[in-house]
């Protein structure tokens, strides 16, 4: 840009735009240099290595707490500020990413005229030099009985249906222009990378992935907690987040594998399942089971099955029979919650629960609860036995219903079941950029397929009264095209035995 001669400006201001333009040109030169692009690729690779060697605090609160404990708050804070503990979100890593994207964008703009030119260049009437290159050959055809359609059929077998581009009185040119989209492959790849990056930015600023909530079976929640980091002292920092709807957990289930040899249950979980209901505006908008690989998506939020919690106080279901009668009644109680039975002064309390009660000599006896009898003031009731005070305690087994009858108490207890309530642990994410990322990814793969597996081939066969001439140009995968051309020559000479090649 130069200033117009009609409006002479002071020397200083006239020079400045020129200097700026020169600077801009130089900058553009640097930005569009492919070597710089490769440098960014390798620099990014090198910087990425750092983060795999130093354990990163990305998504791992424990790691940062570990650093704080080991290095002390000041040094941990310093390392954190330098980005060493979270390399991939440090300013310098992001700077390289931005610079690389800038390079990609600049190169794409810079080369567009050239690449678009190559893409759209059509040469139905070839310049003469097309028949003189390394991929060309000339023949004299001694037989006068050959028809254009014969050439057409042969040509299309190798190069696709030709365009008959130039039919004069004495000559015709068969022309094929194939695979020009390969020129655009690089654009699809690069636009794909930029799109993916844009999606990542979108997710970073308008989304989150580390939301958490625990919901008890049967209850619902409309708020979650987002883990936002760790304080210099190593405390987990969170911020609350209100959902525009509520989530209810109807049911949670964890299943375990059986040992293939013994048939016993192992501790390897085989399945986690939560049945969730979305309550939107007071109505049940959706009910769905979620699994580890199968989250629920609603209103822009995604709920993942992440963990679970077992309730500490299970519900104990007992069947109580008054001794000497057939009278039996159900009783539901909780651990450490005393209850009284008719006709007894002492009270009962379930003290503990074992899912799989084990006695060294007797083996595994299945689920059991321990019941204790207490006085009205809550102190354990005791009985004198062989001069010693012995507390009144006994076990009730689910798998051995008649066991308690042997105690000869006033009531006989049977354990029906112990119900534990679970809380399902959900990870909650809201990432508006994720579809942008998938679009970018699809563009990349499509672009690579175009760029790597196609080649732009232009082929011409000129047929005149005296003979024929072939010319071809290819911009990559030269060897494959050369093979095809060689096979075409062979086929042509076989089909038209009178053809004589002329050395060019």
């Amino acid at each position, binding site marked *: 840009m130069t200033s117009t001669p009609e409006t002479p400006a002071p020397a200083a201001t006239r020079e400045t735009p020129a200097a700026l333009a020169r600077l801009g040109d130089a900058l553009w030169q640097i930005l569009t240099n492919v070597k710089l692009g490769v440098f960014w*690729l390798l620099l990014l690779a090198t910087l990425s290595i750092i983060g*795999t060697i130093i354990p990163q605090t990305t998504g791992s609160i424990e790691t940062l707490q570990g650093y704080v404990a080991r290095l002390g708050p000041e040094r941990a804070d310093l390392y954190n500020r330098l980005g060493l503990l979270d390399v991939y979100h440090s300013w310098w890593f992001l700077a390289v990413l931005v610079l690389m994207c800038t390079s990609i964008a600049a190169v794409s703009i810079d080369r567009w005229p050239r690449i678009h030119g190559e893409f759209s260049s059509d040469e139905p009437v070839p310049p003469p030099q097309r028949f003189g290159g390394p991929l060309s050959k000339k023949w004299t055809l001694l037989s006068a009985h050959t028809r254009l359609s014969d050439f057409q059929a042969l040509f299309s077998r190798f190069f696709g249906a030709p365009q008959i581009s130039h039919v004069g009185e004495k000559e015709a040119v068969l022309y094929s222009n194939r695979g020009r989209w390969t020129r655009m492959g690089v654009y699809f790849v690069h636009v794909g990378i930029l799109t993916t990056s844009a999606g990542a930015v979108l997710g970073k600023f308008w989304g989150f992935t580390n939301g958490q909530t625990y919901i008890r079976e049967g209850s619902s929640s409309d708020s979650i907690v987002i883990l936002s980091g760790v304080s210099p002292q190593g405390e987990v920092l969170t911020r609350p987040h209100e959902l525009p709807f509520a989530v209810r957990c109807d049911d949670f289930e964890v299943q375990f594998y059986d040992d293939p040899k013994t048939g016993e249950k*192992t501790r390897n979980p085989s*399945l986690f399942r939560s049945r969730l209901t979305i309550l939107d505006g007071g109505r049940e908008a959706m009910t769905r089971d979620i699994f580890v*690989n199968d989250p629920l998506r609603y209103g822009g939020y995604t709920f993942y099955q992440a963990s679970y919690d077992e309730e500490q106080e299970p519900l104990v279901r007992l069947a109580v029979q008054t001794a000497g009668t057939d009278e039996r009644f159900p009783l539901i109680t909780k651990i450490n919650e005393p209850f009284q039975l008719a006709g007894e002064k002492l009270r009962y309390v379930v003290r503990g629960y074992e899912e799989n009660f084990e006695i060294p000599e007797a083996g595994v006896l299945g689920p059991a609860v321990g019941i204790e009898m207490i006085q009205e003031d809550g102190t354990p009731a005791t009985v004198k036995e062989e001069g010693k005070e012995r507390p009144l305690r006994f076990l009730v087994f689910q798998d051995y219903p008649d066991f308690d009858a042997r105690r000869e108490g006033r009531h006989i207890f049977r354990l029906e079941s112990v119900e534990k309530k679970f809380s399902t642990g959900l990870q909650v994410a809201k990432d508006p950029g994720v579809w942008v990322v998938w679009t970018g990814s699809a563009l990349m*793969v499509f672009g690579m397929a175009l760029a790597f597996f196609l080649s732009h081939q232009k082929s011409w066969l000129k047929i005149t009264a005296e003979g024929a001439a072939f010319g071809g140009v290819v911009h990559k995968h030269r060897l494959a095209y050369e093979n095809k051309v060689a096979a075409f020559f062979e086929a042509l000479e076989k089909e038209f035995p009178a053809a004589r090649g002329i050395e060019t």
Partner: protein
Amino acid sequence: MSEATLTASPPRPEIQFPWKILSALAAVAGIALTAYGAALSKEGVPSARFEWSSGLLSAAAFIYLGAFALYLVHLARGSDLFSRLGSLATQAGLALHTAGLLVRWTLSGLSQPPWTNLYESLVYFAWGIAAVYVFFEWRTGNRAAGAFVIPTAVLMMGLAALSASHSKEIPQIMPALQSGWIKIHVTFACIAYAAFLVAFGFAILYLVKDGVRSAFLLAVYSAFAAVTFLSYGLGDVLLHAEFPLKWPTIIGTGELLSAPKPVPYAGQFFLVAFLLYGTAAGLYFAGKSEARKRLQDFGPPAFLAAFLAHTAGMILAARHAATTHPIPMRPEMTLLQWDVNAYVLALTVLVWMGSLLTILLDWRAAKLSEGLPRAKLLDEWSYRAVLIGLPLMTLNLITGAIWANNAWGSYWSWDPKETWALITWLVYAAYIHTRIVAGWSGRKSAAIAVAGFGVVLFTYLGVNLFLSGLHSYGSPQ
């Protein structure tokens, strides 16, 4: 018009043997063995079908070993017959391997693909290597790269064979792995890595054909061997500051046992091997100047000595390992029957195989070069392999991201495995850019293809050995 063709010149007419019929027979046998195995009962532990599948996989491992030997003979003697036999053996091994994998797949009622733990992953990656290699052999008609590609498959099958018996059973996979994406994600990784390995094989052949001094290759390889030894010895040095006293514990230990039992003298031999590899590299580079050129003459003998020490250490370790048993009370604590970290073992054996090849290469470079097609073709083939590998690597990253987005709640977590896969992708992206835009080819491109494979190796084995992360399914612990 040049007479160049993508395929190499046809075999000399005097060998008129029905090779193609034999290849077809191998394929038919593979189908028959699969059908027979699938018809067996899958009741009982271990079931007849399970035994059949394991038998096929073991047989495949031995056939690959045979193929490697045949390719080596081809390398040493330049005989077409041996490369033909090696090729046939690889195809037969692949047929059995495929049958073994398919039968194993039927054991889970097809719900769970046979690549969900370290043992299965090793077997599957070996399959990918053999399959991609056979494809390239068919497309290019060249059989010389087999000597550089097949040993990797042998190594992986060998490591798989050494896995503890419980890990060879059909694994009970954790909920996070129960996804359809495991099939497609791991398959892309497998084929992409195999394609990069083939690119590496052709790159080495290119360098030989192009007349790169074998002394130089030997020096570079020595440096690689020394660094590898150092890298896994480094753990003991940095963590325990007991180098070289603790050196023997790197192999035959250790980590998984409560009381590490060093292998007597093996460590010392490895230490000597490490020092000699380093010396061999050092002598070459020190002798670069005209004045000290004589130093370079001592490089190859130093390398040979390093190789012998390496071999001796491996024999001692193997003898020791043969008498060591897994911990009976805690079967989940050891992965290998040899109580050796799988990845340390993998690297030690891999470097040993590489040394063997380097010695052969140094000895017979001229002979090998004679039998190779022209350098431009080898360069082109290496490039083609990268062109197949890079899109598959992209798909590997993308399918991994889609899966992670469903399982981990985020499509990208900067997990070390993920990050190293990205690093691999970046390196090959650099290869493509230098090649297409900056016009690199030949030696420069071959150098990237060789170095790139080092990165692939680290991504597959090294990450699990040195780094921890979410992809811990493949970890020995």
